[in-house]
């Protein structure tokens, strides 16, 4: 090892207060290096919209359960929460045991929980402080906040319970969180196994301030092209509200692959591959040309694959998809995609992907904070192949346009 030059002036270094980051560490300390990136790239001068971030609704589960409308289901859920050991934060949910694999056995503490000290603020939920801390550290102007285990609700064995829990969460979030911080926005989850309930959801919440779109939690067996959804799509199109598809894990995939790495690498992409294929091949972009569609949290590497694969097939089998008037990839270029987790292991491939998808106008930066594979705004700001305007578009201006943000 090299030895230092002996005659240098000596100063006193400062011991950091936090020597090891744990689940108890303050978000601002965890993200201190992101704050440094903010200064390095001048990100405070950017308009930054984070189109995908999370809070943990199970931390507030008793409050959510109180918003279940069906009196019997509410009674049952509260009885389970009250009587069964450890069920207070899980009752009636389908929380997948595999979710506890995400933090790589304690290596990534913020994925497990944000158990930091939060001084009580009268009438305010703790999650508001957590969201504000992350926004401050990453210089975010607006953050779209989603639930977490609820993203797997499409795999719940009971369709009725899915509908009741989704609606209970939506009522809770739009009363307890959303009105208290104007910088928080959301795309509310749809009870997607019940098309009529989806429509009622859009009509009940579509005008609530801060609701900037609606969401399909992608991990489910439903076909997005089923006739029952057409009134939903028409309603969203008419209201100018984007429809997002948020990817999620499928732990049943462990029957086919044996490691969490494999489950995560595949299932966060395959669910959206299925829905995008059905969306395009069934001609939904032709039927609802003004409906804006956003693909969330599948990364970017799948996009050029899908473009090439679907174009190749359609050119040979046009009669299978006669509603299409353009190549599948052309419809895909009209859609929007969130950036995280951005695959950065081959910058040439990444640059080609940006070109293929028209990233300058179609890509929306997202952090996915506080999840284990989150991205900071510095990930976009540091890309040398992007122009200054492209960086500004991806970090916030595209989202401003897509969601009609101030």
């Amino acid at each position: 090892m090299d030895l230092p030059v002996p005659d240098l002036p000596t100063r006193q270094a400062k011991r950091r207060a936090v020597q090891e980051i744990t689940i108890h560490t303050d978000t601002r300390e965890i993200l201190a290096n992101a704050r440094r990136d903010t200064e390095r790239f001048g990100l405070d001068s950017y308009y930054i919209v984070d189109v995908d971030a999370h809070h943990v609704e199970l931390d507030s589960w008793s409050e959510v359960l109180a918003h279940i409308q069906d009196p019997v289901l509410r009674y049952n859920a509260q009885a389970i929460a009250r009587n069964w050991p450890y069920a207070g934060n899980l009752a009636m949910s389908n929380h997948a045991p595999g979710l506890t694999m995400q933090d790589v056995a304690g290596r990534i503490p913020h994925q497990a929980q944000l158990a930091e000290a939060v001084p009580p603020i009268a009438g305010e939920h703790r999650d508001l402080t957590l969201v504000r801390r992350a926004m401050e550290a990453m210089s975010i102007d607006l953050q779209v906040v989603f639930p977490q285990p609820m993203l797997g609700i499409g795999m719940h064995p009971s369709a009725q319970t899915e509908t009741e829990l989704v609606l209970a969460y939506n009522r809770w979030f739009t009363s307890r969180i959303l009105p208290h911080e104007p910088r928080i926005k959301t795309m509310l989850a749809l009870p997607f196994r019940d098309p009529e309930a989806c429509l009622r959801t859009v009509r009940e919440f579509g005008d609530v301030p801060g609701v900037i779109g609606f969401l399909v939690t992608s991990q489910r067996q439903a076909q997005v092209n089923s006739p029952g959804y057409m009134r939903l799509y028409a309603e969203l199109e008419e209201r100018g509200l984007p429809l997002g598809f948020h990817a999620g894990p499928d732990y049943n995939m462990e029957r086919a692959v044996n490691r969490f790495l494999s489950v995560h690498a595949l299932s966060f992409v395959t669910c959206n591959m299925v829905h995008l294929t059905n969306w395009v091949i069934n001609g939904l972009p032709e039927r609802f040309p003004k409906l804006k569609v956003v693909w969330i949290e599948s990364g970017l590497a799948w996009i050029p694959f899908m473009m090439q694969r679907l174009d190749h097939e359609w050119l040979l089998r046009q009669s299978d998809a006669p509603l299409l008037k353009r190549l599948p990839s052309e419809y895909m270029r009209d859609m929007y995609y969130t950036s995280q987790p951005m695959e950065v292991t081959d910058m040439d491939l990444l640059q080609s992907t940006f070109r293929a998808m028209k990233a300058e106008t179609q890509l929306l930066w997202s952090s996915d904070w506080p999840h284990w594979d989150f991205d900071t705004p510095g990930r976009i700001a540091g890309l040398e192949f992007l122009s200054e305007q492209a960086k500004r578009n991806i970090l916030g201006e595209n989202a401003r346009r897509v969601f009609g943000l101030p």
Partner: protein
Amino acid sequence: MGARCSAAAVRWDAGASADVPERGRLVVDAGETSVGIFRIDGALHAYENRCAHAGGPICQGLMVPRVVELLDERRAIIGSAFDETDLNIACPWHGAEYSIRTGRHAGKPAIALRRIPVEEVGGRIYVIA
């Protein structure tokens, strides 16, 4: 990877030798540079507190021995184990893992942390940053 120091480098008194016990760590701010100092088999290793993956605070991460898989004579996996001779540090942002002894990524050694010059004189630890 060799240690480097810039033209405007400063020698920083990071603390007492006892502040970094065997298999322990000390994270300090040396001016604008955050530095982690570790001791393995008596030797000190110092790195900039910035992960080579995405700039996370690598030196404030979990220290955990390298994980290895065990194969039998058929080359079938029969279990896993910790290699206690190779203590790693995992970045708390995303989990990227490096050998503390080499500063190199546990899976792809070409990816490495920036090593900071460190010395121990008269019971004090000094870094140049």
